[in-house]
């Protein structure tokens, strides 16, 4: 599956991560924490020095023109190692979108910023009344032909890392009176622009990884519209397909699986045949989800048309991640519900925090139910 060159890349990548992460690193990456954020910036800089932030991008935009498999290895390894600095929004969402639809100006400016490790992007899609029904968004973007600017007003929610980000890609309704998917534009924003207010929202695990972003007459040049004005819907959907591979979940799931297996081996729990069976069932689902994820990324690389694989792989990857964490939660028993304050069990603590956090996996980037609608209607030709 991976070439010698790919495996060598993985080895070097692991060495780079080792330089930044303590050997006993047990924490799930959480860039809302200051120490993780600082670590994230350092790791990104190190990756950037080797041009590894986006190894499959063209050389002119800071990549190495390598095969997309090295990008897969990068994402999977960073997730497995739980390393901060795994740039989902920049490298895997807006970056490929700009490579496909961006102007020369946008590519030059934004892609290089990403590969230098200077950018943190966030995603402005969902709104208080527009979640799964994304085409119903209300955030307005008023276009002024004279100044060639767009003035944006509205509210976005569930915006992960908005408080850390310096850039946002935002979906706005630029055509007055337009309905549903018509008249929408995908716009690139500077988060330091005047009129942007960020309100943190605490999630189920107690962290504030996502936010409400209020935009009050934020002015942006129309040169920051991706694709044509009023015609951003298909681009916005395509961007979601870049997000949906689920590759991060595969890395996290595999890490949890391996840690749990070691935990059981050390305590001779595998003498219980039921546990062996459970591990075998989970392993088979993990491997099949991983292969589907690779296929989703491969197919995206091969063709521009919309395929079902990203929806399938997103469902499989998020579900197996949850199943493995559920099994860990069950095995750890009271250790996962009572936190020992003096003698910390980092593994147990991580499991419960992650299990709660991963509720989001089946929701963000299009819920599992939306993915199933896509498969049924677009893939299997069932009526809307």
């Amino acid at each position, binding site marked *: 599956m991976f070439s010698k060159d790919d495996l060598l890349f993985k080895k070097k990548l692991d060495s780079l991560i080792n330089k930044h992460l303590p050997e006993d690193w047990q924490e799930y990456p959480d860039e809302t924490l200051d120490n993780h954020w600082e670590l994230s910036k350092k790791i990104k800089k190190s990756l950037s020095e080797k041009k590894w932030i986006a190894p499959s991008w063209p050389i002119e935009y800071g990549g190495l023109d390598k095969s997309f498999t090295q990008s897969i290895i990068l994402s999977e390894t960073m997730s497995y190692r739980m390393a901060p600095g795994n740039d989902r929004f920049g490298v895997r969402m807006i970056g490929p979108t700009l490579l496909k639809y961006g102007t020369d100006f946008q590519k030059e400016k934004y892609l290089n910023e990403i590969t230098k490790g200077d950018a943190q992007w966030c995603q402005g899609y969902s709104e208080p009344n527009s979640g799964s029904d994304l085409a119903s968004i209300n955030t307005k973007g008023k276009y002024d032909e004279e100044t060639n600017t767009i003035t944006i007003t509205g509210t976005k929610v569930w915006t992960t890392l908005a408080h850390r980000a310096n850039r946002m890609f935002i979906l706005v309704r630029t055509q007055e009176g337009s309905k549903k998917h018509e008249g929408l534009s995908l716009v690139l924003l500077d988060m330091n622009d005047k009129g942007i207010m960020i309100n943190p929202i605490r999630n189920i695990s107690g962290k504030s990884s996502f936010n409400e972003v209020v935009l009050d007459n934020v002015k942006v040049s129309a040169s920051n519209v991706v694709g044509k004005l009023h015609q951003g819907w298909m681009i916005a959907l395509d961007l979601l397909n870049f997000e949906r591979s689920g590759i991060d979940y595969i890395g996290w799931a595999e890490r949890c699986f391996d840690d749990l297996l070691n935990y059981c081996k050390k305590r001779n729990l595998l003498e219980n045949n039921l546990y062996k069976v459970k*591990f075998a*069932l989970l392993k088979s689902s993990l491997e*099949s989800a991983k292969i589907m994820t690779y*296929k989703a990324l491969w197919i995206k690389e091969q063709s521009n048309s919309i395929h079902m694989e990203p929806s399938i792989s997103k469902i499989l990857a998020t579900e197996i991640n949850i199943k493995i964490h559920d099994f860990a939660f069950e095995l750890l028993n009271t250790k996962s519900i009572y936190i020992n304050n003096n003698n910390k069990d980092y593994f147990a603590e991580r499991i419960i925090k992650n299990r709660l956090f991963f509720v989001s996996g089946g929701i963000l980037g299009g819920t599992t139910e939306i993915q199933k*609608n896509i498969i049924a209607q677009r893939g*299997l030709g*069932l009526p*809307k």
Partner: protein
Amino acid sequence: MDFSINESQKMIIKSLQDKLEKKVDFKLLNNKAEKKSHYKYGWNELLELGYIGMLTEENYGGYGLSFFDFCLMLEKWGYNLCEGPVIENSISGILTLQKFDSEKFQTLIAQLSNSEEILTSNILEQYIHKKDLPSISKIKEKTLLNGTLSNVPFYKESSNIMMIAKSKSGEQVVIIPSDYFEILEHKTSLIGEEIYDLKIRDFHISEKNLIGTNKNCNNIIDFMYYHTLISKCSETIGAAEHILDITLNYVKNREQFNTKIGSFQSVQHNLSDMYININEARELIRFASKEIYSEKFKKLSLLCKIICDEKISQVSWTAHQLHGAIGFTWDYGLHLLTKKILINKNLGGNINFYSNKIFQYEA
């Protein structure tokens, strides 16, 4: 990383589908399941297309195609509910002889590749019930084989049986002409396939019956078992794809509450689940079929069988639920595909066996 199907593979798939789809007749297949007929197809069609020897190397008169190609072919084989010793003849026969004893068996390899000789085996059964293996013993300077074989498919069609026997020095793979066996029991599978329990008495084993040596015997046995396991999974995937197509067709046409039932979200989500299950199992199986030289092949094969057993049986049960009462009937024929999946699910072991094996390889 490459998930593509090349032009020659597409050609194999299409030629097979064109040839076989006309043969699928649920009425006749139902009759067979009721033992009212012996309707079966697949082997002659493969022979006409020249695919019986698809795994045979070119110097033995075959196509020299890959195991991945073979598995793609088996998906269509399973889709069309074909019956014949294609897996046994190709895996326990051609592929195994080619790999472990090609010089000695070069004539037989060529004969198996054009159906002059046909080989069967019950490797999946023997592998999990090793205590019941026939035994080889020396009696008065003669080396004799005695014992029974359970659940042997395609006995009547086959001229040879490949099997494992135990001797003092360990296990040994042997090939025995079918004529030397006597029938102990005649059984019929859920869909009317004929299965036999056989007995062999004082068969005089000579050098010409032995495959490989005692030393590489375990490799040969594992080779046959794991390749057969993956092959059965590919066949199962084909049957599941047929179930999905039938179900899609049904929900797109069946009306209730003055609307097509395929427009209801719960129905759509069930079909998506079927599609997801088939895709995830198929991609892992196809991947494994390309990894035959990898040290992980055995473990991968077990994982394939687990995912196939787990996810594909769900596909058939969901299909029955979506069909409502019509899918519960004998005449509609959906039960034939479900039963084929259940048969394959119960061959070669169970989750307990597979998980123990996985941990054995893990160690």
